[in-house]
């Protein structure tokens, strides 16, 4: 007798629906964590409300009726006030959504309210996904989908189980909420559930994921060239100090952040320099205790505005003919300045953007900081330490007198005392001789290293005068900003044009994804000094780098060997993230066409291979047929002919049934065991018998089950069981008569 599974009552289904709806609301509210919209308070409120109504499901009945009446006006008022205060659409929308979720959690929901929770949750998950483009989005959307489908399924079952939806009466506890024991409910669900159905449900959900992936790959794409509208609804603040005004300590603060800043994926890994320097911001003006971009340089940068473009041309700064493609996946919140190793031939964005480009300084800056991950491809990128600058060379050599004011890379905004101290140090390290820029840079970096050690725990010494001059005069430790700033002051005091550059240095090679991961902790500051002829030369005065210009081949090889390799679970996760960026986030029409042509090539190759194989086999048969026939050959040919004739007859006689006969041959063999079949028949007859507990009958049933489903038994052992079964059934039939 098949044991009947328990059925969940309507109240139990309602309790499950309540629990799943609450979980869905909390799950979707947590996605707002990734949005950085100042909604932490509301997220906590949703979580607490969810926990409370799960613990005490009668709680919503305590909400007075006037609170329900006031709910909608209050929510609208909060929205208006919040919008008036912050002037940001998206964050306000998110906060109001969370408020709505709180309200839905603390009130008994009807079907339409359940639907509202699903839609609000979907909005939150999608907005978070679009704005962060994080790998977590994949996890979130899958969890959300599974939870929503289960929730909607329960809602449908609840609706099917009742004639009509009962009204929600404020102050009244519904029957299902009066006594809820989650542990008991879990036990009931276990008893009512069938693991095979659960397994099938899991399989179906996996099917949904696979179908979604196929749909994602096959949905036709068009390059419309529009930018994301959500960008305009949120003001993103840089979480780093990469702006055009860097104060001492900004870069160091970034170095404490281990998050990924960007990932570089390139065709030819050998093109990667030993220690790459990713230039972002060029700062030429030193004043007010920090370096900043001078108004003149900013004017040069903003003079050229490219609106809603998919491409940026690097002009003459890049390496023409270099086919290496560098793909950058630039995380949101880093900066509006894009990291580049130097000049470039062309930059292609994954969406239309508005940007500024200053070719001479190799600066590419977006007008607004990207609110979500930005993917861009760079071709013809120059990674060298020497950056030619023809316009500045002409200016320096007096051949070009600019009409507009230009950046002054020699300017020292210092008091005469501080200037005097700098000049004395310059005289000390040059011996009073005018040195070429590179030689001066070498001596200056050595001089700095002799007087200062590197430390992240650095502070400017107290006192009067310029802080950086104070640090130079001390023997205190410093970090990259102090060293770069100190070098810039010394070089300017010596009359060399110099500028400070901030960005990132190095990167960890991820062997799983074969890409370079650059983290915020790799933020760095260094200098570029004018070589007096035609170019800017990179100088990194920070101890440990000591680089002036291009490193020698041995040094470069040693640097490449010494590049840090990421391993472990963190690196695996980073690899997964890169896969996400490469294959999902960056998937576009071109990739789709490549995929389609790859699939087409695969099919064509397969067909070609099959043709070749067939031709080869036919040729072998032909050779075999033409060779002299022995007795064995005749027998083989006869057997083959007979087999083919038999097959042809079966197809003609049974049609498609012949294939079915062949496919189910194995299964038929299993079913064909006469002992199993006979045991099955006796089991059915035994089930039909009625009566109270009977040990003999129970033993017989166990033996029959063993014969039916257990290991194959010999007939000699099975026959006594069947004899017993016959006797028992006869006795029972007589007793019934």
């Amino acid at each position, binding site marked *: 007798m098949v044991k009947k599974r328990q059925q969940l009552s309507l109240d139990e289904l309602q309790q499950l629906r309540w629990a799943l709806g609450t979980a869905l609301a909390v799950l979707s509210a947590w996605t707002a964590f990734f949005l950085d919209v100042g909604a932490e308070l509301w997220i906590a409120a949703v979580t607490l409300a969810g926990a409370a109504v799960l613990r005490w499901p009668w709680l919503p009945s305590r909400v007075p009726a006037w609170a329900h009446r006031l709910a909608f006006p209050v929510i609208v008022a909060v929205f208006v006030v919040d919008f008036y205060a912050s002037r940001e659409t998206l964050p306000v929308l998110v906060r109001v959504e969370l408020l709505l979720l709180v309200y839905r959690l603390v009130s008994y929901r009807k079907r339409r309210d359940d639907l509202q929770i699903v*839609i609000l949750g979907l909005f939150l998950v999608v907005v978070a996904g679009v704005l962060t483009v994080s790998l977590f989005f994949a996890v979130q959307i899958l969890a959300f*989908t599974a939870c929503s489908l289960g929730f*909607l*399924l329960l809602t*449908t079952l609840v609706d*099917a189980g009742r004639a009509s939806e009962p009204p929600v009466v404020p102050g009244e506890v519904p029957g299902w909420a009066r006594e809820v024991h989650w542990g008991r409910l879990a036990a009931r669900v276990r008893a009512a559930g069938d693991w095979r159905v659960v397994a099938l449900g899991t399989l179906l959900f996996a099917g949904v994921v696979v*179908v979604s992936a196929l749909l994602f790959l096959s949905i036709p794409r068009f390059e419309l060239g529009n930018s994301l509208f959500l960008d305009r609804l949120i003001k993103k603040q840089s979480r780093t100090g990469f702006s055009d005004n860097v104060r001492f300590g900004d870069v160091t603060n970034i170095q404490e952040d281990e998050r990924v800043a960007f990932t570089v994926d390139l065709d030819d890994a050998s093109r990667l320099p030993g220690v790459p320097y990713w230039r972002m911001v060029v700062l030429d003006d030193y004043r007010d205790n920090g370096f900043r971009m001078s108004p003149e340089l900013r004017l040069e940068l903003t003079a050229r505005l490219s609106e809603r473009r998919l491409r940026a041309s690097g002009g003459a700064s890049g390496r023409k003919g270099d086919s290496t493609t560098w793909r950058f996946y630039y995380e949101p919140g880093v900066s509006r300045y894009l990291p580049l190793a130097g000049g470039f031939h062309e930059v292609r964005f994954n*969406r239309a953007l508005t940007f500024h480009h200053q070719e001479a300084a190799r600066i590419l800056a977006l007008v607004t900081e990207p609110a979500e991950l930005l993917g861009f491809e760079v071709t013809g990128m120059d990674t060298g330490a020497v950056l030619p600058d023809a316009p500045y060379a002409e200016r320096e050599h007096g051949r070009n007198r600019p009409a507009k004011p230009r950046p002054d890379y020699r300017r020292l905004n210092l008091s005469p005392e501080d200037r005097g101290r700098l000049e004395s140090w310059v005289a000390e390290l040059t011996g009073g001789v005018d040195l070429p820029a590179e030689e001066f840079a070498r001596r200056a970096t050595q001089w700095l290293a002799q007087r200062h050690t590197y430390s992240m725990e650095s502070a400017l010494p107290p006192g009067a005068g310029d802080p950086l001059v104070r640090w130079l005069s001390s023997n205190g430790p410093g970090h990259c900003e102090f060293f770069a700033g100190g070098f810039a002051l010394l070089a300017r005091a010596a009359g060399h044009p110099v500028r400070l550059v901030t960005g990132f240095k190095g990167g960890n090679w991820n062997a799983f994804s074969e890409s370079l991961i650059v983290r915020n902790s790799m933020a760095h500051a260094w200098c570029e000094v004018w070589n007096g002829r035609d170019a800017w030369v990179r100088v990194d005065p920070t101890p440990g780098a000591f680089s002036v210009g291009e490193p020698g081949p041995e040094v470069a090889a040693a640097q490449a060997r010494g590049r840090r390799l990421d391993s472990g679970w963190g690196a695996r996760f980073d690899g997964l993230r890169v896969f996400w960026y490469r294959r999902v986030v960056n998937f576009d029409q071109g990739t789709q066409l490549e995929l389609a042509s790859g699939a087409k090539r695969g099919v064509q190759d397969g067909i070609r291979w099959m043709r070749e194989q067939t031709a080869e086999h036919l040729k072998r048969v032909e050779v075999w047929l033409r060779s002299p026939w022995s007795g064995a050959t005749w027998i083989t040919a006869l057997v083959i002919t007979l087999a083919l004739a038999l097959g042809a007859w079966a197809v003609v006689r049974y049609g498609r049934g012949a294939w079915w006969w062949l496919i189910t041959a194995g299964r038929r063999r299993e079913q064909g065991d006469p002992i199993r079949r006979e045991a099955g028949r006796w089991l059915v007859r035994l089930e039909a018998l009625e009566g109270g507990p009977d040990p003999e009958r129970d033993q017989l049933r166990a033996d029959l089950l063993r014969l039916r489903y257990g290991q194959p038994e010999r007939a000699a052992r099975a026959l006594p069981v069947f004899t017993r079964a016959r006797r028992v059934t006869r006795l029972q039939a007589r007793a019934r008569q």
Partner: protein
Amino acid sequence: MEDAHAGEQPVRPVRPDEGGSWQGPGAPDRRRRGFRWTTMLWALLYPPRGHRVYPTISGVVLISLALGIGTAAYNTSNNILFITLALLLSCLILSGVLSWMNLSRVSWRFRLEPALRAGQETVVTLEIRNEKRLLPTYGLRFEVAAEGKADAPALCLRDRLDPGGGRVSLERRWRPERRGRRAVELVSVASLFPFGFLRKSFPGDLRVEATVWPAPVSYQEFPVLCSARRSAGRPVERVGQSGDLLALRKYASGDSHRLIHWKASARTRQWLVRQFSSEHQDGFSIWLDPSRDLWPRPEQFELMVGLVSTLAEDLFKRGRLGRVTIGAEPPRLMRRLQDVEALLDRLAVLEPVESRTANESRGPGRARSVLVFAPEGARGVAAYLDGQKAATA
């Protein structure tokens, strides 16, 4: 003379266990046809007649969301939106697959309580069976129409219908208004399963006709009916088994096998039974004339049919009903309960006939103890026994 139903199949009420064959996706005849992918795919493109899929409010919201997200995805080329769109579309596909799985190998049939009478409430049972091996079935709604009216609330499958031949019965109360052949029909089967996005509806393909006997009427019985001649000796339930042997006659349905005259049957190669004098000694005969000339008013005709059926049942219960003759039809011997049921089946579909021929208008002739019926006034009906009023309704 033939009435309107003369050409139909034998009239009889639906007995238990014969409420109609199984219908639905899991009905045996459909399973014999087997599953074909081509049929299923074609049905997706061109749904069979009566198959409808309506989006519910949730469905409209989902479709609007998919459209909005699709537009945004194309407008911005944002792959996150494309992923969301793909997930929404695959959820719709999953919904269709689950709905199909929910309905597959499910069948249903009607079971009607026997002896349906006009004006009396009865129960229509819809039996549902799930022949799937693994998956249960949930949330089906059945719209049932009786006598062409589907005004009652739909029958809902509220509990889980377990696989492996699990059965459940849904009941609906029904009060037939009129006698006759009345149809109970499964108008449609609908389901919101699994997510409530779409309401799938298709014809139930199930129709059962039941015979509704005339409604019993209250009548006034006159002494002549009570004091009529009774046979001497012990009253018997079944007439025709005592008294002198009169003759042999052909076997009729309901005759006891003990009455069969084996020798005569063997000689004549047809079943012959012994006929006793007691068959005609006791009880009344009913002679019913359904002529339209006699019964010009339909309501009076209905009343007459109700009175005849009620009197026939009452007299049979008293053991005093001999035979019943309806118009020009052969007389019906009322020996067993089945005979009375057959009479009620006939009365259920009896309609006024056009005119009385000379042969028909003869009436019961010189036979005695014959109840005949005639209109009384504008609305009433009276039964006369040998010219005396025996009952009125």
